């Protein structure tokens, strides 16, 4: 038992979290095995959507995207592993 406040997680704690999470999910899954259900897919025939126009990119959007990127070369984002460390 511990406080739920945010803290940086060590590699050792990550391993513990992984093991405990799997244990918890195993318990959850085994409890659901007793559920019996006949699944009947439903088809919506009324209130169907009328699709409109799609998304249109603009220059301002591109500016924000490049500002958020760790590495940019001219008109490209360099999506390198660990790019944010540089």
């Amino acid at each position: 038992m511990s406080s739920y406040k945010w803290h940086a997680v060590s590699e050792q704690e990550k391993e513990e979290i992984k093991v405990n999470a799997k244990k918890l999910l195993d318990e959850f899954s085994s409890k659901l095995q007793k559920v019996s259900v006949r699944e009947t897919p439903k088809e919506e025939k009324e209130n169907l959507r009328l699709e409109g126009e799609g998304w249109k990119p603009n220059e301002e959007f591109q500016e924000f995207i490049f500002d958020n990127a760790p590495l940019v070369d001219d008109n490209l984002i360099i999506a390198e592993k660990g790019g944010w460390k540089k």
Partner: protein
Amino acid sequence: MKGLQEKVKEIKSGKLTATKNVANFLKKIDEKNKDLNIYLHLNSEALKQAEEIDLKIKNKKSVGKLAGLCVAVKSCISVKGLITNCASKVLEDYVSPYDATVIKKLREEDAIILGMVNMDEFACGGSGETSAFGPTKNPVNTQLIPGGSSSGPGAAVAADFCDFSLGSDTGGSIRNPASHCGVVGLKPTYGAVSRYGLLDLCMSLDTIGPLAKTVEDSQFIFDIIKGQDNFDTTTKEETEIKIKKKYTIGLVDVKKYAKPEVASLIEERTKKLAKKEGYEIKKISLPLDISLETYYLLVYVEFFSATRKYDGRRFGKKIEDFAGHEVLRRILGGSEISRAEFKGKYYREALKARAFIRQQFETLFKEVDLIILPTVPRTAHKIGEEITVEEMYAYDIFTVLVNIAGVAAMSVPAGLVDKKPIGLQIISPQFHENWIFDLGKKLE
């Protein structure tokens, strides 16, 4: 209490200005935010936007239904030009390049985005404590958690730091803080409000909804943000459902799961209302014994999938290197059970249980119009208090079924237990929010 529609009338008539409204909130925020830790970022354009609205009013130009009202936005809903970091160091400096559809709709009605507010990191938590920028305090009692994951939106309304707020609800994240902070929180029907621009926790369960001081205010905001959006294919227009003179209410037996005083308070309030309005009450039960198991299996898998974009290559940092313990629990657990060798064991079981739960609700709503139960099973704990994962997850036991079934629900303040606010939860069939509003107003 002055309602939002009345306040807009005052702004439009010149009795109050939008500028003054913004300035009043900024003053309170300046005085108390350092302690309460509600706002993460303020909108530096807020006063300028208010001046523009005042000028339009002065020049007798038409203004929107929300003219001059100030909204606080949970930090996982995209607001163009503002830092939308999900209270995580992973997205610490991430500036949203576009407005979520809900924000676009609010702006079109001349609402003013006051700022981005705190939350549990990536919406993983039910207490507001997992924010990487420190927990939000409950304005009712600053020693207590405000609830989560929409801790900031709940606390912002309770502290009078905004006119209303927007939160997201995947398993109770709007209703839980509404309950702990003594405000009204609406989780709309899945598909009633667009999720476009929401940084997702679990896309098959996520919804966006308002938190406000009254049911009427909540309805006012919901009517503006709802509707079909071509950027979210799960949305559709609501058909008009007429309110009823008499409702049959299903009162859920929660004694096995709730603190006795909480269960008694909700039962008393429901019986009192039914007697006054001449409603019939039927005792019912919900599949609460499998609610958390179904919910968390779905969330772990879908959250793991959703977080694959946080690889630090195009924006932000790698999530596995910078997230806190609850986010990592869901990623590492979700990664494990998503492996090919477990095909059919975890997520498939949860999908089967989800179908069962949906069928249970369909059957129940043939017998009753609305369902009532507490929002949370217990009162709020103290910030930093030691608590197990199971105890934390148990806060959600009465709220997660609503998301699994895709129906609508609202938390309305019901009273105090141990001097701490407790919410009463009203659940309706899909797209029957107006029944909830009708009943909620009678409960206030």
